[in-house]
């Protein structure tokens, strides 16, 4: 489990080459200009990154969750924002592949896996975040169509994506009344809020998605009516591992920069790295990231095997990895002194980008709730 196979090494090497040439040199500019690099995402799609753990039948890459974690860590070393968007896109494609029928898979998976079309995931609402089962966007059956009304909040890729997987209420029975429906961008009545101004994640758009009498065929429903909440939660298990891997990647980049800086910066008569207290900081950062990476790989392995403790391990891994990534990035700013606060050095961007990972895909408080409840059998 902890020694990479030859294939995994080759995969990681390719992703590193791609990320360092096609993403890293532009990350700062994309952040500053809020540019969503659709062309680069398409290139990632041709390399197989649009459907990493999606079956090969309709164009997926057929890799494992462990492979995906390795890939997201590598991508995130170059830019956590782009890596995180690719992770969300992968969750969408996987949902259609895993829960759609063959007709739906044949229709949507090829264009999504190649990233010719981008996907967005619509669960959160202005009034329903952590309490996702309370969502109120309605889908009312009318003949052979659903008519959707409501608003989704914080939707990554919104306005650019071609395909939206929407969790909507089809019955007033709490989590049992939620259904997953695929809504294409061109559906009449679909509109988007303004691009939100954010602390980080600037290279991907975040908007409200607004449904006003949006009519889609019943054939766009994934799985049975009422199965949406289960699909959402299963999707989030994987999303948590992927987002955790993105945090580890961003944190590792911050650590690598810090080590190089402490070696080259002299003060008090020698390189800063000779100050033992700073060496201890490096040791703590390295250890925190490796702890997180270990748990991420364990959770990914549980997902691959469909192990009974998957939910618990994914929640633990998400919490540990996203905390570790942010802590390390924040510490890296401190180690760089005033330079860490300058955009030019790239550290404040990593911290800004990774901060939201502690909030999304289930906040870290929700992760503790999941782990705590499972621990005490509640």
């Amino acid at each position: 489990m902890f020694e990479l196979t030859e294939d995994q090494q080759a995969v990681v090497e390719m992703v590193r080459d791609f990320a360092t040439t096609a993403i890293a040199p532009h990350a700062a500019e994309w952040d500053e200009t809020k540019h969503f690099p659709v062309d680069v995402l398409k290139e990632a799609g041709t390399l197989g990154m649009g459907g990493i753990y999606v079956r090969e039948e309709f164009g997926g890459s057929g890799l494992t969750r462990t492979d995906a974690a390795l890939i997201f860590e590598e991508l995130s070393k170059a830019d956590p924002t782009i890596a995180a968007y690719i992770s969300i896109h992968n969750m969408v494609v996987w949902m259609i592949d895993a829960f759609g029928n063959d007709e739906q898979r044949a229709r949507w998976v090829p264009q999504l896996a190649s990233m010719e079309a981008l996907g967005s995931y619509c669960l959160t609402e202005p009034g329903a975040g952590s309490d996702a089962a309370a969502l109120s966007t309605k889908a009312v059956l009318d003949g052979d169509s659903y008519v959707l009304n409501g608003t989704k909040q914080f939707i990554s890729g919104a306005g650019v994506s071609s395909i939206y997987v929407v969790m909507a209420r089809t019955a007033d029975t709490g989590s049992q009344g939620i259904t997953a429906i695929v809504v294409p961008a061109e559906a009449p009545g679909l509109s988007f809020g303004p691009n939100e101004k954010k602390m980080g994640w600037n290279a991907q758009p975040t908007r409200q998605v607004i449904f006003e009498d949006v009519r889609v065929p019943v054939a766009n429903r994934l799985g049975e009516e009422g199965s949406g909440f289960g699909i959402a939660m299963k999707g989030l298990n994987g999303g948590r591992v992927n987002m955790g891997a993105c945090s580890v990647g961003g944190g590792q980049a911050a650590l690598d920069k810090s080590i190089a800086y402490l070696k080259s910066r002299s003060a008090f008569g020698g390189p800063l790295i000779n100050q033992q207290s700073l060496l201890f900081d490096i040791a703590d950062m390295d250890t925190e990231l490796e702890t997180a990476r270990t748990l991420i790989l364990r959770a990914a392995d549980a997902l691959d095997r469909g192990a009974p403790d998957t939910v618990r391990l994914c929640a633990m891994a998400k919490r540990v990895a996203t905390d570790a990534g942010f802590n390390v990035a924040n510490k890296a700013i401190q180690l760089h002194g005033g330079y860490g606060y300058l955009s030019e050095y790239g550290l404040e961007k990593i911290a800004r980008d990774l901060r939201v990972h502690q909030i999304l895909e289930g906040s870290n408080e929700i992760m503790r709730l999941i782990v705590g409840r499972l621990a005490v059998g509640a």
Partner: protein
Amino acid sequence: MKIVVLVKQVPDTAEERKLELATGQLDREAGDNVIDEINERALESALRIKDANKGTEVVAMTMGPDDAAQALRKALSMGADSGVHILDDSLNGADTHRTAATLAAALRATGFDVVLAGNESTDGRAGVVPAMVAEYLRLPLLGSLISADVTDDAVRGVRQGEGGTLNVHAGLPAILTVTERFPEARFPNFKGILTAKRKPVTTLSVAELDIPASRSRTVVVSTAERAPRAAGRKLIDDGSAASELAEFLVANRLV
């Protein structure tokens, strides 16, 4: 059409490269060994021909130790159809002449319409092996091209010379070498990486090739490490630095 691309595993130019002083040979443990970038460009142009014409067969050929299989694997992951690995301890330390004789014999055994190679490796930098191979095979060499157009029975290309460019052409079979003016290589995709190990690789020993039991004709007499760089001269500006700098540039023919 069958295209054989010659690939060489070399030390990564991004890392420290070392010679073993006792043997005069490359220290392969000193850093990562990778497929030479110029060979990747040669492979890329072969793959583009294949993209445009699906009937094209692309074979990657290398001569080198066990580890050189990694370079073939990379070529296969990028899209080559099969590999040929010339692997024989007796080739250890082969000079350009012996390398070319061996490659020529392997090429004859493999068969080809076009051979594509880099113009010069980043480690040995002799830049003569493709020409020697052409000589052994008695085939035209279109060397150091900056562009090439390969059709079913001929190749046209532009060769960069010091004083200008030459338009060159030849019938097939022919041997072409590419320069860095050729496009950068593609990344292998995940599918390519995962299918690479299922593609056929033929391993050939010297005994299986029709070559006279020749030895290397050149001998490395001695190897020395490059002297460490001396500190440069510092000019302190007391009003005369500009003229001193100008003198320095003129004396060293830098202007």
